């Protein structure tokens, strides 16, 4: 090691990032990087084998995460990160597969896949960064935009109802459901650690500031103002009834871990069922089926 190397201090999460792709494309004040930091921190704390984890993103601002993480990483099509991850997980059951994408990607265009992956209890970790709008395309209204908020395609305010993502995912069958904001860095990290160690469909929603579009359009100030909003209005209620978790415009944000239960995964159920029906003739499916 030469002298220069010795003197170069590295951020410990660089191991998990593609530093040759920095700087990233996210705006100053954006919360996505914070969630990526939590993710990297979770991997570091868990001493996770980085060769045994894959990350799949869809399209959008958060869709760029896969491209910045130094893991087996896939930047796929809009809304299809979850089914892509489903195929990957089923083909390579010993790999932990993480879907990292935005609210529009996962719950808007990809909403059908979200509920079905939860229903099957597909062994995936889904990290859904919710910034309340379609940011990459210019701040259009989303399935998650709170009622009355302004968006570029809801210029007179949004009159549609917004999705309550923890409620949907719990109802569909997810075995781990949590919601945090970008302010709750350590709690996001802890939730990701728990999800990484869980077998089953884990869903973590992280509410993040979109300064350039959502905040500006709604005159909510900058990133700091939004973090202040999270600070003032978020309330930790572990185990809260997910039916009560609707988000109103600048209203209360109930956060916490709402669901953490055990249920057989898709592959566990498949192996158990087919073994019991077909007996010895069934070719047990698992990591050695290459």
């Amino acid at each position, binding site marked *: 090691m030469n002298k220069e190397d010795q003197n170069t201090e590295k951020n410990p999460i660089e191991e998990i990032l593609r530093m040759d792709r920095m700087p990233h494309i996210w705006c100053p004040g954006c919360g996505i990087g914070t969630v990526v930091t939590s993710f990297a921190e979770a991997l570091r704390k868990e001493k996770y084998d980085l060769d045994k984890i894959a990350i799949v993103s869809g399209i959008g601002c958060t869709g760029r995460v896969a491209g910045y993480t130094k893991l087996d990483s*896939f*930047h*796929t099509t809009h*809304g299809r990160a979850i089914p*892509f991850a*489903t*195929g990957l997980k089923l083909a390579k059951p010993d790999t932990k597969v993480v879907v990292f994408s935005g609210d529009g990607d996962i719950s808007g265009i990809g909403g059908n896949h979200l509920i079905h992956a939860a229903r099957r209890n597909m062994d995936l970790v889904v990290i859904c960064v919710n910034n309340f709008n379609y940011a990459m395309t210019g701040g259009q209204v989303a399935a998650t935009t709170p009622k009355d908020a302004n968006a570029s395609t809801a210029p007179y305010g949004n009159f549609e109802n917004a999705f309550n993502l923890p409620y949907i995912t719990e109802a569909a069958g997810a075995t781990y459901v949590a919601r945090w904001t970008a302010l709750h860095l350590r709690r996001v990290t802890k939730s990701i650690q728990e999800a990484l160690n869980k077998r089953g469909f884990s869903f973590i929603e992280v509410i993040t500031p979109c300064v350039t579009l959502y905040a500006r359009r709604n005159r909510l100030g900058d990133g700091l103002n939004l973090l202040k909003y999270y600070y003032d209005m978020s309330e930790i209620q572990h185990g809260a009834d997910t039916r009560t978790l609707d988000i109103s415009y600048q209203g209360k944000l109930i956060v916490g871990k709402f669901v953490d239960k055990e249920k057989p995964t898709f592959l566990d159920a498949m192996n158990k069922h087919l073994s019991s029906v077909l007996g010895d003739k069934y*070719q047990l499916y698992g990591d050695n089926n*290459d």
Partner: protein
Amino acid sequence: MKKSKADPKGVLTGSHFMDGDYALAEGGLAAGCRYFGGYPITPSTETAERFSERIPYVGGVFIQMEDELGSIASLIGAVWGGKKAMTVTSGPGFSLMMENIGLACMMETPLVIANVQRGGPSTGLPTLTGQQDMMQARWGSHGDYEIIALSPDSPQECFDLTIEAFNLSETYRVPVFVMTDECIGHMHEKVVIPPAEEIELVERKWYKGPKNKYLPYKNDTDGIPFMVKVGDGYRFHTTGLTRDERGYPLLNAECQATCVSHLIDKIKDNADKIIHLKETDIDNAEILVMSYGITSRVSIKAVQEAKKTGIKVGTMQLKTVWPFPEKRIKELAGKVKAIVFPEINAGQVVLEAERVVGDKCKVVSVPHYGGWVHNPEDILNAIKEAAK
């Protein structure tokens, strides 16, 4: 190109009486397909049913996805997880798959999609035949790219060409379509499945070099990049964006030209190796009947009748429709008086024949809008007319 023999576990050696849909599934299993993601759609459902019934005994996964967008996306994931993967669909489902077919092309992901065609557009004729998705197979996803499409004329060819489709997809890292139709999908005939050791398979082009030197899109000497799978420590990236050798997005005109021309050239430059034709009586032919799939079977009757009247007729069955056999057709165009081209559509692949032959010979389209096959008499009349 590394070759191997089929895994006997997936090969149902023997003589069978089965329909084309089942034969597609058996072809996939024999070719080593161990992942099937599908969504039910008439008239292709029997392929998925067959796969779901057989795979537990072979070792692999069948999953019925929530829609065709999910099916095709899951296939791409499964392939990067190291599996050979296929799906089956028909017109409306094929339409839903188009965006991710583009992703498979861009990521250079080998996989096989069988389309048991029915009459369209829209819901059209769910239970009745058509060959109307031929241009969609070639151009259906946005942007410029090339794919390979095969067209079987029987349940036996459904089996044989599905294996060929897997081999081509692995050789060129490209989605390959098996474009059959309702008629063949539901036609029961003898299908002979050979012993596993007689089935030759192309292995995936695995990268074996040092881990930190792997570049997902650096072309090997044969123009095709090496592949890896997740979990093997390469920690690689790939994307649907225009990308460089590293798989990193690089959004400019130069990178776009390199990336897209490669997707096109790897197929065009190897067209001679890919194209698979069956010709009969071509040497002294004055009329060439070109066809593919079920229409090749129907044409036989018309050709026999035409020969009885003294017309010299040769035939060309396109087992490979895409890439189009331009070179061979150009050769023949100078020799024959006319090409007669029946298809169960308003005239799709015939447009390519017209483009290729120019004014060297006449090209006669014999369209059929779907719902049934041609009456051989219509093809016969077209041959007679062209021979005048």
